[in-house]
């Protein structure tokens, strides 16, 4: 244990003596959180519309007012020329074209069925679908108004219909930032731990200082622990830092237990650093390490559930995700922070992290060769 302490002290001295690294460890989380949390959003806002209103009656204006009042859409262009409308769609200047035909208002007045034509730019399938749903909502609202207007005089009592009351749990304000921050924070501590820890070991190989260590009677597990703990500590420090920043700048709630989150983050980082060290003991240069680390990072992040729910992934992807520590940590962080989930709720996930962490760390100890 004493040996490990001597080595850990050495790592900290080296990290904080490096003027750039010492600052970067603090600066990177600030910049990334402040930029990414507000920027990365899946909310649909400001869908650009181009309207071809051939009708120009109070009904068509009523529809347009409804659309504008929703806050989701922005009418960018009113035109009578179809060509112009579709060229805007083509050049991505407009996301949707709504074509209101001549006689729209007259037909409604007469009680005839009316049709409008909506064309959506679906290059981004997700946002196209969402804007379509919003527009449908507006139009069915309008239909209801028309129906009431027509039959209201006949039926004095209210129309029977299913009324949906909804309550939003855990993120009551539907604040997207509160959903993204735990995810971004998880990615952040992963990247910091992985890059700092991995480069550190490979650099010792490159400059040759590891040879002097390898010729000492140090035990393999002592060496791996000493290479893991400093970066575990730095990543946890950044997590704490990120939570404080989130609180200050985004009023990020924290419903659950901070201790539980840090316990889970510790297990998670042991898994990440175990993998990092496993890669770096087999890498001969920083390039080799970075390529392999990057390969895993991309998989972890894109499959980890920051944007897309992991539950709706195909079965084979779910199987891969069983070994993806980020899935567990991302879920735990959100559950603990937003729902206040306790040890029992996340126990299974913690156990998975622990298993992955121990396996990778043992492999790293086994794989490390005290040779040149």
């Amino acid at each position: 244990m004493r040996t490990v302490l001597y080595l850990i002290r050495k790592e900290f001295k080296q990290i904080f003596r490096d003027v750039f690294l010492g600052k970067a460890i603090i600066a990177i989380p600030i910049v990334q959180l402040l930029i990414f949390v507000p920027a990365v959003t899946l909310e649909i806002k400001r869908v650009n519309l181009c309207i071809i209103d051939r009708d120009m009656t109070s009904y068509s204006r009523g529809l347009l007012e409804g659309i504008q009042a929703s806050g989701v859409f922005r009418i960018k262009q009113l035109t009578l020329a179809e060509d112009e409308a579709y060229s805007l769609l083509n050049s991505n200047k407009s996301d949707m074209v709504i074509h209101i035909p001549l006689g729209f208002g007259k037909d409604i007045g007469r009680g005839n069925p009316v049709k409008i034509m909506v064309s959506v730019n679906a290059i981004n399938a997700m946002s196209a679908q969402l804007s379509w749903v919003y527009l449908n909502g507006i139009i069915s609202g309008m239909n209801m108004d028309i129906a009431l207007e027509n039959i209201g005089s006949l039926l004095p009592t209210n129309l029977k219909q299913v009324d949906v009351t909804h309550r939003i749990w855990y993120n009551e304000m539907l604040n997207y930032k509160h959903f993204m921050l735990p995810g971004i924070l998880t990615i952040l501590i992963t990247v910091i731990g992985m890059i700092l820890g991995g480069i550190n070991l490979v650099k010792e190989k490159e400059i040759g200082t590891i040879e002097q260590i390898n010729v000492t009677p140090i035990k393999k597990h002592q060496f791996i622990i000493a290479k893991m703990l400093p970066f575990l500590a730095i990543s946890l420090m950044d997590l704490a830092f990120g939570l404080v920043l989130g609180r200050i700048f985004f009023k990020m709630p924290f419903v659950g237990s901070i201790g539980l989150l840090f316990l889970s983050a510790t297990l998670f980082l042991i898994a990440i650093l175990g993998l990092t060290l496993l890669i770096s003991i087999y890498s001969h240069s920083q390039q080799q390490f970075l390529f392999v680390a990057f390969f895993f990072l991309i998989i972890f992040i894109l499959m980890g559930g920051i944007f897309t729910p992991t539950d709706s992934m195909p079965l084979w992807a779910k199987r891969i995700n069983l070994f993806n520590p980020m899935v567990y940590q991302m879920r735990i962080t959100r559950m603990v922070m937003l729902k206040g989930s306790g040890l029992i709720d996340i126990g299974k996930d913690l156990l998975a992290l622990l298993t992955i962490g121990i396996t990778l760390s043992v492999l790293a100890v086994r794989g490390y060769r005290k040779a040149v």
Partner: protein
Amino acid sequence: MREVVIRVENLVKRFGNFVANDHLNFEVYEGEIFGFLGANGAGKTTALRILSGLSSPTSGNVMVAGFDAKRQGEKIKRNIGYMCQRFSLYNDLTVRENITLYGGIYGMSSGLIKQRIDELLRQLEFEEYADRLIGGLPLGLKQKLAFSVAIFHEPKIVFLDEPTGGVDPIARRQFWEEIYAAAARGITVFVTTHYMDEAEYCDRVCIMDQGRIVAIGTPTALKQKYGASSIEDLFVGIARPNAQKE
């Protein structure tokens, strides 16, 4: 008869088809300065790494400090010091921090480390450099320091791999004074070099060429045997005919 601390019998080390060490046989006695001479690529470093537990032999018996290099590499490491060709202390740590680190790794108590560092710095007249980063020191001082770190835990044997490469003659002379001082304390010194003048400082030398030992003995005896005026003449005389066979 003095105690044998290194015994090498039929040591062979192959890298694929390349034979780096071809049936080496020699013994090193306690307290002597044993020089391992040879041109670049003769197989000196390979043999030294096997002796210090960093690499394992393809075949043959190697005993170092009473342990088998094949199976007990870690036990050997506890009993030896090592200084490699490439400077391998931490440039971004101070002199004191580097020594403390290695003292700690070898399990010395922090009190003992402090006391020994003060002694060492005084003895080397290094006090003014104690809290400077090693990276900024001249190479001669760095090498002396690397040697001091290698023997800081008082090992039985110290292995030095071309310790004076790139160092000026004065610093080299001073370095050898340190080696003598260590040998006088009973530490066996195993040193590889291709500086032939340094060979004259050794108690015994072993000359390697293309993976084989071509001569072994005291410098005086070898010079007499081959009728050479210096080890350098001797070396060129032995190594050159072999090289021409290629």
